[in-house]
């Protein structure tokens, strides 16, 4: 096998064949987390720095646990405790971090494009943990893995993504990845939260949720990003919940074997309520479990082998 990527910046850059490789390997790494001794020596002596310039629970923990289970050393830095707040530019910060010789930087940043620039300018691996409204490649991979684990294949799977598509890097990465893998995608949300140009994405779009629910194998609810939204996008949480929230009635409209996904964190009572989040069809916690396995796989692929793979 040959892995040509130093970095994981966007699903856009990864071929369908490479996505398959990642999804196939992740099962091996998942098994490690089930052992009593949850650690392999593979990345001993490698340093992984996590730079999170935006709040995160799951992704940051998941990356850190993944790196530690492969025996890499991890250092995590968040914006509030760093000199970013003193006015240092992000490129200066990155160069200084690089001077301490990490093998990998995991970066989350509130604006699109920084991981791409770091990947181009720094010799170490750069893994994008979410950049602005652009991409969140590791989330899409763990989502695809969770779907594949449940259904066996992604080809022909009907995936419905609901909510704030416009501001969602999760939706963007999933749409790109799922299309490459041959899934059929439907996006649903209020018109104000659909991205401009969505008609060119090659997906089905419906501003009404109820008519499209019965076709879906996967119903993926997106978080209403309160921190990014103001009142101009929809008139209120209650109204949003009424039209786009996943509740008992809508769960009953789903196919018998369809599953519910959510990238977290959930706003219970807004885009999803207890009846949906905690029911048997929900694979939300499987997604979190699989996140560790996917990130272990990516760390192994990007840091594990020799550099001479051109």
């Amino acid at each position, binding site marked *: 096998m040959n892995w040509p990527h130093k970095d994981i910046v966007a699903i856009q850059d990864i071929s369908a064949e490479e996505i398959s490789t990642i999804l196939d390997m992740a099962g091996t790494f998942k098994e490690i987390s089930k*052992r009593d001794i949850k650690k392999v020596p593979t990345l001993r002596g490698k340093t992984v720095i996590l730079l999170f310039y935006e709040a995160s629970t799951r992704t940051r923990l998941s990356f850190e646990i993944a790196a530690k289970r492969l025996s890499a050393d991890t250092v995590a830095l968040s914006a509030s405790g760093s000199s970013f707040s003193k006015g240092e530019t992000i490129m200066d910060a990155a160069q200084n971090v690089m001077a301490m010789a990490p093998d990998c930087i995991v970066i989350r940043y509130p604006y699109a494009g920084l991981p791409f620039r770091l990947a181009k300018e720094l010799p170490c691996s750069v893994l994008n943990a979410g950049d602005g409204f652009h991409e969140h490649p590791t989330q899409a991979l763990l989502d695809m893995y969770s779907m594949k684990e449940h259904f066996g294949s992604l080809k022909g799977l009907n995936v419905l993504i609901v909510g704030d598509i416009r501001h969602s890097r999760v939706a963007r990465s999933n749409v790109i990845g799922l299309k490459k893998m041959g899934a059929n995608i439907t996006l649903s949300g209020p018109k104000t939260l659909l991205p401009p140009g969505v008609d060119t994405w090659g997906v089905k779009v419906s501003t009404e949720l109820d008519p499209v629910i019965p076709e879906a194998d996967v119903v993926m609810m997106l978080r209403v990003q309160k921190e990014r939204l103001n009142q101009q996008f929809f008139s209120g949480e209650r109204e949003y919940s009424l039209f786009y929230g996943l509740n008992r009635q809508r769960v009953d409209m789903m196919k018998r074997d369809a599953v519910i996904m959510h990238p977290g964190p959930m706003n219970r009572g807004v885009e999803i309520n207890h009846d949906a989040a905690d029911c048997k069809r929900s694979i939300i916690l499987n997604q979190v479990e699989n996140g560790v396995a996917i990130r272990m796989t990516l760390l192994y692929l990007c840091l594990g082998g020799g550099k001479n793979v051109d």
Partner: protein
Amino acid sequence: MSEIPMNTNEIEAILRELSDKLFNAITKWDNCGFIGIRSGGELIAKKVVELLRQKTGKDLPLGALDIALYRDDISKRLYYPEVRSTDVPFSVDEKEIILVDDVLHTGRSVRAAIDHIVDLGRPERIYLLVLFDRGGRELPIQADFVGRVIDLPEEKIIKIDISKGDVLISEVK
């Protein structure tokens, strides 16, 4: 030093000898388990367990290890070792483990396999069984049960396809 056995019958005979040796050496059949190193060792382990079933009447526990994540040369390699899965469906705690590989050479695979096994638990002891010992050790590791000691120049690699009984010898690229 013996000639390299090249056909199914010869390999079958060696496997019978090996299972005889094991049959005489192991006393606690209820407390042992076989673990083959993927992929060559896995097939040998399967054969040996099959032969021992005929002698002991027991279905002895059998597992397989993938040692890719335990290699000591991961950051030195040009290519990525293929990662397969480890499947040891029994607890190794307090067991006598018979670790099985097809060819013992540098000893590095065995070192990696031992490290992997101790991550799964704490066996009472680990034996090593190999079909061929070709010498050339780089670590202080020896096998307890050896099919044949063979002499092979350093630049040659040997591959055994046990299902067909083929032994392929080729040059290192």
